[in-house]
């Protein structure tokens, strides 16, 4: 059962990892990704906006896709919204599986898909009062497209890293 949260509050990776594996003896590895707010170009804060209702549904769908592709024992996705300061965490993805390949690959898949498939928008605030919306990046689309190609090969029955991990 995946844990999906969209929240203002910071998250605690140690507490979330402990909760993910508490009482279990079937987890061989936890893949983790923490997205942090960088202070590029005098950035003073990042303000994250989302589409309440659609956001949670979109993330659950992405998690369902990951669970269909890899044998996960548990999964946590926490995405913050509101005002985030440099050095603070923005997003946390944890994936637990019996084996490392499934944990690491599904974690990478989830963060790539969150970038392009979950309705969040970032606005940058700078020292001096300037602000600008972060533009979507072609590299993020390319990362999602790579997983889609992998999925298409899997459907054609070709061996892919994801299928090997599942086997």
């Amino acid at each position, binding site marked *: 059962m995946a844990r999906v949260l969209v929240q203002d509050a910071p998250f605690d990776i140690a507490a979330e990892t402990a909760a993910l594996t508490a009482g279990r003896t079937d987890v061989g590895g936890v893949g983790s990704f923490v*997205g942090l707010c960088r202070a590029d170009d005098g950035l003073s804060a990042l303000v*994250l*906006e*989302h*589409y309440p*209702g*659609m956001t949670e*549904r979109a993330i659950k769908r992405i998690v369902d896709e990951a669970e269909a592709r890899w044998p996960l024992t548990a999964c946590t996705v926490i*995405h913050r919204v509101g005002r985030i300061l440099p050095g603070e965490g*923005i*997003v946390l993805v944890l994936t637990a599986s019996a084996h490392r390949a499934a944990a690491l690959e599904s974690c990478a898949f989830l*963060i790539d898909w*969150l*970038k*392009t*498939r*979950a*309705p*969040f*928008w*970032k*606005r940058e605030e700078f020292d001096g009062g300037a602000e600008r*919306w*972060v*533009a*979507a*990046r072609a590299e*993020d689309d390319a990362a999602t497209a790579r997983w889609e190609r992998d999925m298409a090969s899997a459907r054609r029955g070709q061996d892919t890293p994801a299928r090997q991990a599942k086997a």
Partner: protein
Amino acid sequence: MRVLYFAWVRQKVGIAEEEVAPPADVRDVASLVAWLAARTPGHAAAFADRKQVRAAVNQDFATPDHPVAANDEVAFFPPVTGG
């Protein structure tokens, strides 16, 4: 029909959401955009470059040819940048 705006699309339109009753010939996302763009200068500015605006109908991403109906929730926003 409930229409929601997010990020810079919201800032340009000037409101976060509105109830609208488009005419009967507005049957899909593309014709709704054309109708909304003619409402105020803010709407026109938001939809000036339509390739930069994405849509969702009833909280699912939707293409310009996706149908829209009176009870739908339709949202407009820039390409997403989460993660």
